[in-house]
């Protein structure tokens, strides 16, 4: 069977080789990169622009974006027909291709995030390493931790005031440089689509900007969600222990900071959300107004076939409802949770409508294709490009974060 045939339904005049070649994983790719970039931008808002109220969430967002980073390339890798050759993108990049820059942008970005984390945590790393070194008769686990942190110091144990001050400057510089790089990482994911001239829906110079804006929206939303979940867990634990252990603040304290942080962050979320929607609407109106040859088929896709996906799921449930939830005064944690989940869903639907929607009409402009996502996998292909492959990509960052958080505690005062 031809690749793509199993999940593609064809209607009217479609040429023989046309299928939905880019399926759910390619929806996941911009979704995940978007979240990475957004999380990083959120953390930079504190480091660069000194928005104090975001201090709590900034450090967490930074560690979280490191956890998300490897996941950004996972869907790309999973959708390759020759996954073993994926490394060629790094060793023989063909620079006229938008995808070829991936290796470089990705590596640069990784280096920036990793070194920023190192500078942020350096004091903590050194202190922990020294504390463990001094400790008599260490357990096996402690020995391992000691080794980990000693390696992580990279041999620099200087935590004098001057050195720490320099660290802070380094963090600021890295965070500043990181913003354009993060935008580039994601903007260029938009470029991958926007530059495909053969695709009437994808081709627009607005695509990278639209992608960046919705990326920041999704990054902030996911950071907020994870932040709330973790804070709630901590509150729960604090309530059970009923002690003010160093890592566990009192319940009221936790609740107080949480609400505060969430309210401030949601303002930024709203700001970027408005920007993203305006751009998308501009694109839509412009296409309708200029009404090129391809508009006829696009119109039939946008207002017909995909109406529900675009206007109900994406704009309605994914944008409008959370917008209302956030602007009603007296934002509560519960309302925020609902809001950010809907926002995430909205951004996901936007990716879906771009990637799948862009392939739902034929190059003949008079035929349609419909993607039926494989649910129960019966071979590698239907796993990779089906529901479970997508879920695997979804949960991996949380598993990675769980591990990273053990080394770089994202919530404790350091």
């Amino acid at each position, binding site marked *: *069977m*031809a*690749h*793509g*045939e199993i999940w593609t*339904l*064809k*209607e*009217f*005049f*479609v*040429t*023989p*080789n*046309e*299928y939905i*070649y*880019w399926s759910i994983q390619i929806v996941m790719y911009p979704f995940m990169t978007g979240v990475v970039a957004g999380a990083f931008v959120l953390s930079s808002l504190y480091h660069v622009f000194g928005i104090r109220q975001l201090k709590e969430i900034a450090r967490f967002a930074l560690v979280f974006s490191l956890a998300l980073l490897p996941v950004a390339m996972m869907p*790309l890798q999973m*959708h*390759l*027909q*020759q996954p073993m*050759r*994926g490394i*060629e*993108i790094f060793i*023989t*990049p*063909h620079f*006229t*291709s*938008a*995808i*070829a820059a*991936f290796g470089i942008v990705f590596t640069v970005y990784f280096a920036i995030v990793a070194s920023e984390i190192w500078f942020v945590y350096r004091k903590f790393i050194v202190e922990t390493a020294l504390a463990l070194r001094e400790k008599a008769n260490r357990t096996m686990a402690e020995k391992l931790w000691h080794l980990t942190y000693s390696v992580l110091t990279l041999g620099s144990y200087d935590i004098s005031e001057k050195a720490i001050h320099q660290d802070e400057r380094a963090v600021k510089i890295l965070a500043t440089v990181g913003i354009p790089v993060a935008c580039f990482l994601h903007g260029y994911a938009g470029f*991958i689509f926007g530059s*495909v*001239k*053969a*695709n009437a829906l994808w081709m627009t110079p607005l695509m990278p900007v639209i992608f960046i804006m919705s990326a920041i929206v999704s990054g902030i939303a996911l950071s907020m969600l994870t932040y709330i979940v973790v804070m709630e867990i901590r509150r729960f634990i604090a309530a059970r222990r009923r002690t003010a252990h160093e890592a566990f603040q009192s319940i009221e304290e936790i609740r107080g900071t949480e609400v505060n942080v969430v309210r401030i962050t949601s303002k930024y979320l709203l700001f970027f959300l408005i920007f993203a929607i305006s751009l998308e609407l501009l694109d839509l109106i412009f296409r309708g107004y200029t009404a090129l040859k391809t508009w006829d088929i696009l119109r039939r896709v946008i207002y017909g076939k995909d109406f529900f996906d675009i206007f109900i799921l994406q704009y309605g449930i994914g944008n409008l409802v959370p917008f209302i939830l956030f602007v009603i005064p007296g934002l509560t944690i519960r309302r925020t949770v609902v809001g950010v989940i809907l926002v995430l869903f909205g951004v996901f639907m936007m990716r879906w409508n771009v990637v799948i929607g862009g392939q739902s009409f*034929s*190059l*003949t*402009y*008079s*035929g349609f294709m419909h993607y039926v996502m494989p649910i129960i996998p019966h071979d590698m292909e239907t796993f990779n490009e089906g529901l479970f492959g997508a879920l695997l990509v979804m949960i991996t960052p949380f598993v990675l974060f769980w591990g990273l958080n053990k080394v770089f505690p994202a919530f404790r005062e350091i």
Partner: protein
Amino acid sequence: MMKRRDFLRYSAKGVAGLALPISAIEIVSPGEIFADRESGTRWVFLVDTYKCTGCGLCVKACKLENEVPYEANVTRTWVERYVMTKEGKVWADTPKGARDGFTTNKIDLGEGRFQDVKNEEIQKAFFVPKLCNQCEYPPCVQVCPVGATYQAADGVVLVDRQWCIGCGYCIMACPYGVRFFHPVYKVAEKCNFCYHRINKGLKPACVQACPFGARMIGNIKDPNDPVSKVIRTGRVGVIKDEYGTMPQVYYLGLSREVV
């Protein structure tokens, strides 16, 4: 002590001396190496749609020659049928790429549905064979992230089966829907004018199989080539030139309905 002017002079020399070997190092792509080797050949294709009867023998021959699994619903070349009614409606289809020709008057609407068009309603109808245009500016080559697809000096666009990672970007970038994944090799696949045959002086399988002479191949750089003559002197059209790809498959009798 070195004078300031001397110092400047030495530095300038030093920089120039250093720059020379550096400028010798240049990043070249395989395509550029090929392009430098001037070729006396530029393969082009000519389709005479007036002669095509939609028998599909070309599609059959292509599948067998190029080992594209016979039953798989992908093909390097295909034939489209266009039927225009007196009311101005355009119907078009290409069942199985016309591998078995057009066996019924009914238009294939996909998913097992058919459209009946009565003979007396028909204003005009014709067939259009399709294949890779071996574009002069191929977007498929431009977007390949690893350089696995490239243009040979004679204009034919090829895929390196050993190097293709199967990302599908080229499939997305081709405005003509020519590319697909080979069901066996799991890499990008497309028509290459039967490159293995034309380099031996043979005709492509489809050209040889067409009983009506609707398909022709030629060298546009050769002024005496009959195909080249038709393209140079006759009135020929190409498909979707608005993409700036400069397609090199020329058509006689192209109609505005053809997409």
